[in-house]
Structure formats: C-alpha cells, structure tokens
C-alpha cells in the first residue's frame, strides 16, 4: 500500500558520472518498502512526478536510498536538493521482485546502468534470507560504475563496461555463458539489454523490472502500458509491475 508522505533528505552525493545517491528518511515508507518497488517523487513544480526505484532500505534508521541519473530537467533539479529539504513522495509503489524462494537457491542479478540500484536492495534482502547471490553489472564506462563493493559483499560480482575501461569489455550478455549455474535471474536495465538477456537465458526462470514515462503512477492514467499475454492484453508498469515474470510480458 502506498501513501503520500514527506521524506527528509538525510544525505546526497555524486556517486558516479551524472549519478546521484540520495538517502531519504520516512518511517512509513521504510517500514513498508520491499525490493523492486519505487517512489513517485514530486520535484518542485514539475507537472509530472518522477518514478525512482528503491536502492536500499534500513528499517532501523527509517532510511531509504535512491540512485538516479541526471537525464533531464527533472532529475537535474532533484540533484540540486539539499540535506534537510523535504520531498513529497508517493510510495512505496508497485509489485516488486518475488522473494519467497527456497533457501540455498542461487540467484543471478543482472543490472544495466541506472537499472542496477533496485537489484542491490533485492540482493541484500535475499542474502539475509539464505539465498546465494551472483551479480553481473553493466555500465557505459569506468566513470559510471557504482556499488561494486556493495555487490561484492553479497556474492561473486562481474563488472562489464561497454568501452572496456573497467572490468570486462562488452555487454552483460557476453559474460553469461560461463555463469549459467543459477536457479532464478532478476534483472533491471535498458530495454535492449533486457531483450537480449531474455533471449540468451531462454528457458531459465526470470523476473525483469521495467521502466516507462509515467503519468499518475497509481494505475489510473494508462500512460505506462506494455503488451501482455493476459486476458485484457496489457499490463500497467506502475501498478501491475514494475517487476514482471519474463513469461508474462512482451518487451
């Protein structure tokens, strides 16, 4: 269940090229957040809120971490907010990653760019519940890499950069051949990456988190629709997702 809440900015810092990590404090949202959910954030007087996924959640300090990339006016403006400012947030929103999987299973996390953050919250949660974690994280180049040590704490982590300036060179799918020993995969990243991932991992059980330009964020306006193999022929990314079983949607 989501609520409209005020979240206090506890810290904000540039963590990689054009990428900001912000820690927000709010008890209700931190108590109710689960991996894969997102916040719909009001930024100044911008007409539309911005959906940003939850990268971490601390139930003790009531803190939520978000990471976002500066891609336009809204995210640039959000990046200018200071510690102590409050954000008007709808959240937590959406159906996250399924986490009720058998202990001792192995999960492969595959993240691309700004799709990496929700996988950290997920990986941390799963590890605490006895799941083995492997991660393959893709970034444009060395300047864009973030959270590598965080993921290494969860399990074996491979970093891939498109230009080869750090870690392996190429795409996340290039390193999968030698890393197929897992029970489930969970992924978030650019649509072309997800498409090729689904094709390479055909037959494996997987869940993907999708993004789209959103309007209301609560399931009413039908802006963020994707074709689906269900009776009505579509799913809403904001309220049916943003996480989907790879079998149920067409991207």
């Amino acid at each position, binding site marked *: *269940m989501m609520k*409209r809440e005020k979240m206090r900015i506890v810290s904000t810092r540039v963590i990689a090229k054009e990428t900001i990590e912000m820690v927000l404090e709010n008890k209700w949202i931190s108590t109710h957040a689960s991996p894969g959910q997102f916040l719909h954030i*009001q930024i100044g*007087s*911008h*007409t*539309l*809120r911005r959906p940003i996924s939850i990268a971490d959640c601390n139930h003790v300090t009531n803190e939520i971490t978000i990471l976002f990339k500066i891609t336009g*006016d*809204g995210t640039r403006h959000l990046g200018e907010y200071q510690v102590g400012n409050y954000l008007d947030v*709808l959240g937590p929103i959406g159906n996250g990653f399924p986490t009720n999987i058998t202990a001792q299973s192995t999960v492969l996390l595959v993240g691309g760019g700004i799709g990496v953050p929700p996988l950290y919250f997920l990986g941390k949660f799963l590890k605490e519940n006895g799941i083995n974690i492997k991660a393959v994280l893709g970034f444009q180049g060395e300047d864009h890499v973030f959270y590598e040590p965080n993921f290494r704490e969860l399990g074996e982590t491979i970093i891939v950069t498109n230009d080869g300036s750090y870690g392996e060179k190429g795409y996340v799918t290039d390193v999968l051949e030698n890393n197929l020993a897992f029970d489930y995969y969970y992924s978030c990243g650019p649509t072309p990456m997800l498409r090729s991932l689904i094709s390479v991992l055909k037959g494996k059980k997987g869940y993907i988190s999708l993004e*789209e*330009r*959103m*309007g*209301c*964020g*609560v*399931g*009413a*306006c*039908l*802006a*963020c*629709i*994707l*074709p689906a193999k269900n009776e*009505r*022929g*579509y799913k809403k990314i904001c*309220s049916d997702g943003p996480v989907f079983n790879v079998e149920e949607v067409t991207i």
Partner: protein
Amino acid sequence: MTNLAIELPGLSLKNPVMPASGCFGFGREYATFYNLNKLGAVIMKAATMQERLGNPTPRVAETASGMLNAIGLQNPGVTKIIETEVPFLSQFNTNIIANIAGSSLEEYVEVARAFNETDQVHALELNISCPNVKEGGLQFGTDPLMAARVTEAVKKSTNLPVYVKLSPNVSDIVQIAKAVEAAGADGLSMINTLTGMQIHLPSRRPLIANKTGGLSGPAIKPIAIRMIYEVSSQVNIPIIGMGGIQRAEDVLEFLLAGASAVAIGTANFQNPFICADIIDDLPRVLKQYGFNSVREAIGKGIVA
C-alpha cells in the same frame, strides 16, 4: 455557510468539482486515497463500443507547466464498463458522467444507447475532441456541421442529458458551441487538450510515440478561461470548465468566466487528493472574494 451546491441538467451537484475524463480512470485507484462521496461528480474515462488498446508508448511527456499525452482512448469497451466499472462507482454518493467516443457517428450512437440502458449514469459527455486517435474524436469536433450532426444523433438515442466536450483546436470555438447548442446539447464541457509536440534531442524524434499529443495542465488555463469567457455569453446552456486547474482560486476564475462547474485533470497526477483538497478550500476562496455560493460567482467576471 458557503453553498457549494449547483443544479445542472441531470446533475444535482453537492459541489462543482469533478475529476476530468481520462485522468481518473474509473475511480478505483483514487478511491484508495479518499472517499469518492466527496466529489460533485466523476467523469469516467472515455468509452468506445469495442475495447481499445490505445497508442504505443511513450504516451506522456512533461512540458513547461504542463504535459502532453497520447493514450489513444484505451478502454475495455462500453459493455465491460457498464458491467464492472459503473457498479463500482455507483457505491458512492456522487454523480456519474459517462464520456463517450467513437470512430463513426454510428459508434457514438451505439455507445450512448448502451449507457441509456443503465440507470446509474446521470449524464453523458460527448467526446468530439480527442486529438489522439486517427479516426473520430477531433474530426467531429472541428467542423460545426459534423459536431451538430453527432450531437443530434446522440441526443436522439438517449434520455440522458448530453454535455458536448469541445476542442480548443479550432479557430472559432463560439461557432462550434452554438452549433451543438442548436443541435440539442444540454451543456458544454470545455476545453479538451491542445494538440502539441515535443522533440527529444538525443533521439531527434518526437518524444511521444504517437508524434503528437494533447497538451494539458496550467499551461493551457488562460486559453480555457478565454474560450469559456467567449462562449458563455453566446450560449444559454451551462459549461463544465476545465484546463489546468490546480487550486481553489482557479475554480473561482473558471466560475467568473462563466463555467457552472469544473473538472480537474492533470493535477490529479501531482496530488492524488487534489479534488478533495480543492473542495475543502473552495468555501474560503469564495468567501475571500465576496461570494456566499458557487451560483453567485458564475459569469461574474464577464464585462459587458
């Protein structure tokens, strides 16, 4: 005590505020935020005869003080709306206005007939102004003769009062308003969105997959006010005003321009409680500017 109630054809409104069509779905999502009994009415998302899956994504883009949308009239079809959505909204003590759309005059008539057979819908909003579908919608709304023809045909097929939703994408909105009034419209609803476009610099392509979209939000409010001001003195039917309303002061501005009630669209996305918040704040604003009722304020901004 400020009187917010207003009587319009088919609608006994406890207050003049209703969510606009397409921005509130069928109320289910917003009913989780507040009790819809609060609302003067709910205008449902557009209904067509058959189910429509709408346009490709992206369907929305932010603009300066507004947004573009091109949803494409996605809806489950009138039969399903009557079976599942109307009964849901009927639980609430509010008026239900059904927005009807179509690709042909026959489709408008069929959808109007379908709603006429329920006893839970209080009025129809005739959508001849959707800019986001290839056929229908706007082609009826930009030609006075076509607008009159579809209004007349729909009026003949229903006992419900018909509010015709006008497009601002015309050079003379008064002419269209007069034409639909002469054709039997019980009221007007104005304005729909303005057709716009935004180009995404990295991809050098229109940001909205449909290329064009309907511009809404505070950016269009002065246009809505001007058009309502022009039309209200030229017709004798009431106007439900809309276009960029964000606060109770804006509602008063629409009333002064000649609207008898208002609909709130885009602002629901920013603040899901906006309709309820504005209803709560409206008495204060009316009082501040010297009015004891909504009725008193209607058309009071019009200079002879």
